[in-house]
């Protein structure tokens, strides 16, 4: 029967491909499987949601052309779940982008409270739709015909994707154009999938678009992920080699402070994480040396930071020493970072 309906068959193949892609990504990426850091958890959850979406979407499309009376309940449930999933995926994506850039959980809760309300309203609408058909109705062949509330829900989904762009633009404006994060590896396949879906509603391409986008995003981010220690969240010393390549006429940071702790353990890592100024970078150079790179150069600020870290370390029974260097005007990144080797 499905061979008689090539678009539905294509959807099943594409959803199967999406599931396979996501499973491969999760199987081959130890980092994602372990998801020790918050960004990893968020990304992992998006991948899982994509798999779930592809499963229910495939199920929903597989029911087309079946007996209406027998399959209507299953079709409604699958369709409802496949409508909730994209909203959650794009919301989760927005949260992932925000957290990756700003590393602030409180910021997520403060910024996106409205989003929780919107999602809840949409879920309630979809549940009500099961009984009333307010968002869409099923025809004899179990295809759906959408009404206005459904399109409102679509707009909300696109809003989440749009907001992720704004978060990146906001970050780049504040951080003077640092080319930190490119959303396009994710957004282009997703938008392509969504556009195709809109042109041919029988063709479910959101799943495969999202899966391809996630894989491309992971590949794009991989180099950065590999530089971060999963346990501490600090960068590894390899980062310095990358930073040395920053062009000679740009300054990578104002100050570098090296903290040396003879008996370094999780305690000193927590102290350093607690004292690290916002938007600064902490690099673990070796077993006992940690390098903080921060934009500011005011000596009095550096001294407060060193005092606070030293006091807390001594209270924890740790021996710590420190030294700092400030990047001179015109000094290249390489010359500056060599001082910490």
């Amino acid at each position, binding site marked *: 029967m499905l061979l008689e309906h090539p678009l539905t068959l294509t959807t099943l193949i594409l959803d199967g491909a999406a599931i396979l892609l996501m499973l491969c990504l999760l199987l081959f990426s130890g980092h994602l499987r372990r998801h020790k850091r918050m960004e990893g958890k968020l990304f992992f959850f998006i991948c899982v949601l994509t798999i779930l979406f592809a499963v229910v979407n495939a199920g929903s499309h597989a029911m087309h052309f079946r007996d209406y009376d027998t399959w209507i309940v299953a079709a409604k449930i699958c369709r409802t779940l496949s409508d909730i999933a994209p909203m959650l995926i794009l919301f989760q994506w927005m949260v992932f982008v925000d957290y990756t850039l700003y590393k*602030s959980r409180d*910021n997520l809760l403060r910024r996106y409270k409205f989003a929780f309300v919107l999602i809840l309203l949409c879920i309630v609408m979809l549940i009500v739709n099961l009984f009333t058909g307010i968002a869409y109705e099923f025809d004899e062949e179990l295809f759906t015909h959408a009404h206005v509330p459904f399109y409102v829900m679509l707009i909300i989904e696109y809003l989440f994707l749009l907001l992720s762009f704004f978060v990146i633009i906001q970050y780049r404006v504040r951080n003077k154009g640092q080319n930190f994060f490119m959303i396009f590896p994710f957004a282009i396949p997703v938008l392509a999938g969504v556009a195709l879906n809109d042109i041919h509603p029988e063709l479910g391409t959101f799943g495969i678009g999202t899966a391809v986008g996630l894989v491309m995003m992971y590949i794009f981010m991989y180099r950065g992920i590999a530089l971060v220690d999963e346990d501490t969240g600090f960068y590894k010393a390899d980062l310095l080699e990358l930073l040395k390549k920053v062009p000679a006429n740009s300054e990578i940071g104002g100050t570098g402070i090296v903290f040396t702790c003879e008996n370094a353990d999780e305690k000193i890592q927590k102290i350093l994480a607690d004292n690290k*100024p*916002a938007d600064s970078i902490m690099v673990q150079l070796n077993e006992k040396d940690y390098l903080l790179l921060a934009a500011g150069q*005011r*000596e*009095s*600020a550096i001294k407060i930071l060193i005092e606070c870290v030293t006091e807390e370390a001594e209270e924890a029974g740790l021996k710590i020493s420190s030294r700092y260097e400030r990047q001179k*005007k015109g000094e290249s990144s390489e010359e500056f970072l060599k001082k910490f080797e």
Partner: protein
Amino acid sequence: MESRNITSDNLEDYEKILDADVTENIGRDNFRGLALHKGKDDPACAALIWELKNLDEDKDNEAELVYYFAGDKKNGEQLLEEAEAEFQEDEVKRSFFEFPEDTENAESIFKQAGFHPEKREGRDITVTVGELAALDIAKGNVPDFVSPIGNLMVRQFRKGIANCMFHGKKGLLEDLASLPMSWYDPEVSCCVEADGKVNGFLLIHKMNSGKLIVELMCAIGPDYRMDILHMLRFSIKAAAEKYPEETQVILRRHNDAVKNLSARLFPGKQGETVLAGEREEGR
């Protein structure tokens, strides 16, 4: 004529000629004071207080003259000559001032000393607590992540200060790092916290005269503009509860952000006319 440095050790000898709001700054790391005496046992006949700026930064040192008093022109001229020598010791490259319009003899003396004085609108605008409480911004709820600095431990406060300073924020305070938490009003000054860290402050100091002055207003989180508005709302409400309506609050429009904010809150409000001037040092 004898010149003496005004310090916290001998401050009581000069309290009669110094402004009450200036005396509390003597003893701070970046404030200097000079007085002239006719004879060893004579009281001061002239005094100058200045604040050194940019000592901690990769910029030329500057000196802002914050208080000037001289009984006559000759004393004023000598005072400025002595001060110039001190500027050279501190490697000051530029000095400037903004004094009340009617400061005695100031215009001619400073002109003679090379300052190019002129009368213009001052950078400070003064409003009352009552006027602030009447603003729309003062209405509405304050989120629970804004709290008075009195609730902070000293170490949290210092970490927050370091956090702000690493982002280039210092407000009006060259010695922000050294000022204790007790310098600021603990109930009216506030901070914003996120993820257990302080990433914004609105610090208000109550001067000897009873006036309040906003000395630092900054936030460095992703939604820093909203954070600043929340802190403003908090501080206005707290000030309205703690101080009488007529208590004066000084907003110093020292940068574009504060200029824009005060233009938005008090459109059309102008500063008083002052006598202002500047001079390149090391001529």
